[in-house]
């Protein structure tokens, strides 16, 4: 009864005409911005955050949920038609979907991605509905030591498991942690790393960091090495209605992708990359047409797209129940909660149950809206891909300035944005992933808080982290997540040199 009753009340909140309107505006803006090449879901959410500032929290989060899902849908359209993954989780869609588009089956690729995203998003939201209350009960048992260990686990998986180099991921994470230190120390009230600038006392907003790294840094990277022989947008050909054969090949892939994406996304280690890669590998193994993989196999779009969307819903489980963001997008959403003075975690379900369940209900609604928006209107979104590059990047910079300035109406934030943009340019130049830095900015202060509280309870005894069994187990997994990839790469490197 519990979850269903709560969900029913959530639908009452989400189905008011006003909130339906905000949900629609959210999915529309999310799709439009998400379709723009070079703008992944994390940047979409960061750039559109100011739009929600003047709304009441419930409407703001309903709109925000729409932006989040809309950005995911929009990103897959771009991947298929332009072969530009806006984020690492869309790489597979970009490979296989773009091949399909080049073979004149672009419409079918878009359709299987959209319907697959709908199926996966809906099933995963059902999973979210029933798993969240369970996680809340578990979370209530956690003390500061366990929370600290969980954050360390998220740190190590985000920076070490993904990407090509463990040390580069960790550098990104520690840069984020250093940025997160700026401001007033919550436990003693001392200012840290503010260099005497009063505007820095409140810390550096994660939106500034995300916009600086993703938008400004990326724009400078593109400007520094402007490609003059660009690929053309592949025109959408074929019927948007999939053939019987294509349905037959897609539906199992959708379900398998969902089954991989949601549980892995819901783990407090997170990430959408692993389930999409796993889904692709599994579909290739199971397919009766393995030779089509790499040349535009529809299962290779259907499975990973479903996995990607299911994990996007899964990521909301640790975010809402534990207050732990495990992706760059989730980190920005956590910052949005904090702007309203809300702290996601077990207590949020008690104190703001209207908001949480309204948000979850609007995810169901947003999914339906997106399916309706995306199937018939895809031709319209495709036109956005043809925006001339100078206008695209000029527009991104204008939006970046607007988004950052409107946070506090302070030019100090713009200076910080430019500095972080320069760092982002260098990180791009040296192949250092930026997502760990964004997560580090948000999770760093939380990690410090739990770390020091745990030590206060233990009266300064550092063994508290390894004598509590749950904390110890999580920390061991976290250490393995760093050590194993290093060892694998070492042995592989030795194999190569032979």
């Amino acid at each position, binding site marked *: 009864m519990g979850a269903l009753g709560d969900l029913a009340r959530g639908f009452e909140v989400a189905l008011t005409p006003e909130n339906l309107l905000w949900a629609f505006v959210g999915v529309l803006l999310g799709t439009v911005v998400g379709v723009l090449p070079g703008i992944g879901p994390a940047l979409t959410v960061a750039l559109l955050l100011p739009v929600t*500032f003047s709304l009441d929290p419930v409407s703001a989060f309903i709109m925000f949920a729409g932006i989040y899902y809309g950005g995911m849908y929009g990103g897959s359209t771009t991947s298929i038609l332009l072969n530009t993954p806006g984020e690492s989780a869309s790489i597979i869609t970009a490979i296989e979907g773009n091949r399909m588009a080049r073979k004149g089956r672009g419409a079918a690729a878009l359709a299987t991605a959209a319907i697959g995203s709908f199926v996966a998003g809906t099933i995963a939201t059902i999973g979210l509905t029933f798993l969240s209350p369970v996680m809340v009960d578990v979370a209530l048992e956690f003390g500061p030591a366990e929370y600290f260990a969980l954050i360390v686990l998220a740190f190590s998986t985000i920076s070490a498991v993904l990407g090509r180099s463990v040390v580069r991921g960790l550098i990104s994470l520690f840069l984020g*942690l250093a940025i997160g230190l700026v401001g007033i*120390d919550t436990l003693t009230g001392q200012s*840290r*790393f503010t260099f005497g600038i009063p505007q820095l006392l409140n810390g550096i907003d994660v939106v500034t960091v995300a916009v600086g790294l993703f938008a400004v840094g990326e724009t400078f990277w593109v400007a520094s090495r402007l490609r003059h022989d*660009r690929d053309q947008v592949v025109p959408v050909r074929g019927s948007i209605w999939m053939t019987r054969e294509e349905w037959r090949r897609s539906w199992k892939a959708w379900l398998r992708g969902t089954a991989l994406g949601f549980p892995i996304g819901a783990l407090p280690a997170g990430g959408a990359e692993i389930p999409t890669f796993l889904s692709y590998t599994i579909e290739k193994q199971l397919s009766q047409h393995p030779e089509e993989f790499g040349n535009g196999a529809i299962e290779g779009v259907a499975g990973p797209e479903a996995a990607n969307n299911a994990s996007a819903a899964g990521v909301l489980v640790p975010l809402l129940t534990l207050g732990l963001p495990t992706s760059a997008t989730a980190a920005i959403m956590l910052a949005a909660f904090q702007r309203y003075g809300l702290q996601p975690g077990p207590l949020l379900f008690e104190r703001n149950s209207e908001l949480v369940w309204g948000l979850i209900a609007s995810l169901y609604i947003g999914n339906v809206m997106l399916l309706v928006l995306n199937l018939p209107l895809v031709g319209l979104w495709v036109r956005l891909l043809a925006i001339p590059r100078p206008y695209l990047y000029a527009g991104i*910079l*204008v939006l970046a300035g607007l988004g950052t300035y409107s946070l506090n109406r302070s030019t100090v934030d713009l200076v910080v944005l430019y500095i972080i943009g320069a760092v982002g340019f260098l990180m791009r130049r040296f192949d250092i992933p930026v997502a760990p830095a964004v997560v580090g900015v948000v999770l760093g202060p939380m990690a410090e808080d739990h*770390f020091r509280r745990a030590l206060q309870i233990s009266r*300064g005894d550092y063994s508290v982290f390894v004598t509590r069994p749950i904390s110890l187990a999580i920390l061991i997994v976290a250490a393995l997540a760093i050590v194993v990839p290093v060892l694998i790469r070492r042995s592989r490197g030795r194999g190569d040199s032979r």
Partner: protein
Amino acid sequence: MERGDQPDSSRSRTEIVAELALALGVVAIGALVLWQTNEIRVAPTYSRIGPRVVPTIVGAGLILLGLWLAADVLTGHLTGPSEESEDADPTLPTDWRTVGLLAASLVVYLLLIERAGFVIASALLFTGAAFAMGSRHPIRDALLGLAVAVVLYIGFTEGLDLRLPAGWLEGIS
């Protein structure tokens, strides 16, 4: 500008130098964090885990990571060129002219946003950035930038109740 006019070995040698400079930069940031950690005041009576503990860990971590990266580079673990992307060609050398024009546009925006107002600053940023990225229609770009800025301004101030600086156009709306 031509690709491949350098022999491969010298190309990778410049890459090693650049990577070592990066490692040095990471060590320097770590040192900066440790130095600023000493500036944090701690009440002498505060006996719990103070505000300096975590910054010390972060600073020391950055120094160690910089050294790890340097060791990786020196033992031949280069990562190769950056990921492919639609609009950027990682094999090209840095085009400092474009970067400089873009940076100049951003500085103008910073200086003007509170004086001339959001609309004028944004329109100029749009025009400047479009020019830097290769557009050669400054008048059309300026009109387009102005339109974008006005739509954003009206949408945010009227539709969403957010205040943005009106600047020189104060009173017109």
